[in-house]
């Protein structure tokens, strides 16, 4: 859906992280985008290739993890991994489950290129 806008926001944030840490560039970005986040990982990758041009992330690679949907069942007390179009409880069949995973949209990890390692300096 709105993958390009999300990437432009991601680039803004990467710019801010580079400035904050006095780094030179971004080499790797790791994102979690669940199947129920409304974001399609493949489209996000394509959009990232466009959005990164001429930015601090111009040479960065994007790694997208898509955590499987998980539901918690109030009826039998279990938590299970399910599929995006069947969110009922696989243990007892309950329809009253709560989604506990699979709709994440998280920037999880960023690798920055730095002249000196701030952790040792």
């Amino acid at each position, binding site marked *: *859906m*709105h993958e*390009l806008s999300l990437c432009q926001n991601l680039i803004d944030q990467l710019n801010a992280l580079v400035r904050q840490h006095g780094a030179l560039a971004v080499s*790797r970005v790791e994102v979690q985008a669940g199947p*129920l986040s409304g974001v399609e990982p493949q489209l996000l990758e*394509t959009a990232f290739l466009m959005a990164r041009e001429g930015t601090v992330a111009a040479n960065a690679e994007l790694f997208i993890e898509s955590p499987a949907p998980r539901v918690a069942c109030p009826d039998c007390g279990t938590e299970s991994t399910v599929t995006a179009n*069947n969110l009922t409880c696989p243990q007892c069949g309950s*329809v009253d489950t709560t989604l506990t995973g699979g709709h994440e949209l998280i920037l999880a*990890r960023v690798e920055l290129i730095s002249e000196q390692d701030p952790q040792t300096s």
Partner: protein
Amino acid sequence: MCNTCGCNVTDGNRHLLAPAPNQRVLGNSPARILNGLLEHNDRQAGLNRARLAAEGVLTINLMSSPGSGKTALLEATIRQLGGRLRVAVIEGDLETENDADRIRALGIPAHQITTGTACHLDAHLVQGALDRLDLSKLDVLFIENVGNLVCPASFDLGHHRNVTLLSVTEGDDKPAKYPVMFRAADLMLLTKTDLLPYLTEFSPERAEDCLRKLASRSPVMPVSAKTGDGMADWLDWLDGEVDHYRQLRQSGATQRPRVQSEGRTLHATTGPEIVFKPVGFSPLSA
């Protein structure tokens, strides 16, 4: 389409794409980082919702594929209400005033949003439309979203209820194919049911089963805007929602769509892990 052409960039959110060097706050949670655009939308949606609450206008977001009968449903609804509820309509399409003209022909105020290339309405576009309507004279505001089973589900407009239409000329497995959209439905209407005798492959039971599998207990109602079958149930639901909204409003509360009320805060964490690599490091040589 949306990933490459930027069709999600609307007049309502275009300003967000311009760099705003002084607005960035370092230390945002990762969820807020990636949700930045949606957060800005959600903030405007909150303002819209407060404005609608001040005037007591129950607002219903109609979503579906193009051509599933949203405008026909609104026409039949307006005729059957016969002025019992004061109604207005915000229409969303890429082009033309056609749908708003159909509503105005019934003597009902309508504002057409033409999105150009954008495939959904957002809270900023709806804010502009609210400016054009006299909210003090309304009980119910319908927002007919752009026909699309994907993007509209992700944008809070400040409305109170999501109604998703599935016409019997489509597949009965649409909820399984578009789970994000149908999971958001507070009510699923099966439309064009007058055609069911000719479309024996469409099973209303299978459509409902697909919805239940999304852990949704939302009601499912068959309606035909053409024959009027099922319209009474739909209008009963609408009356119930108007009453419920008025009660909530009296106690100072407001109504939100079922799924959006879960909030996007589930994933707030402390920030991305930052790793440093030396100059000359290249992911390609790693």
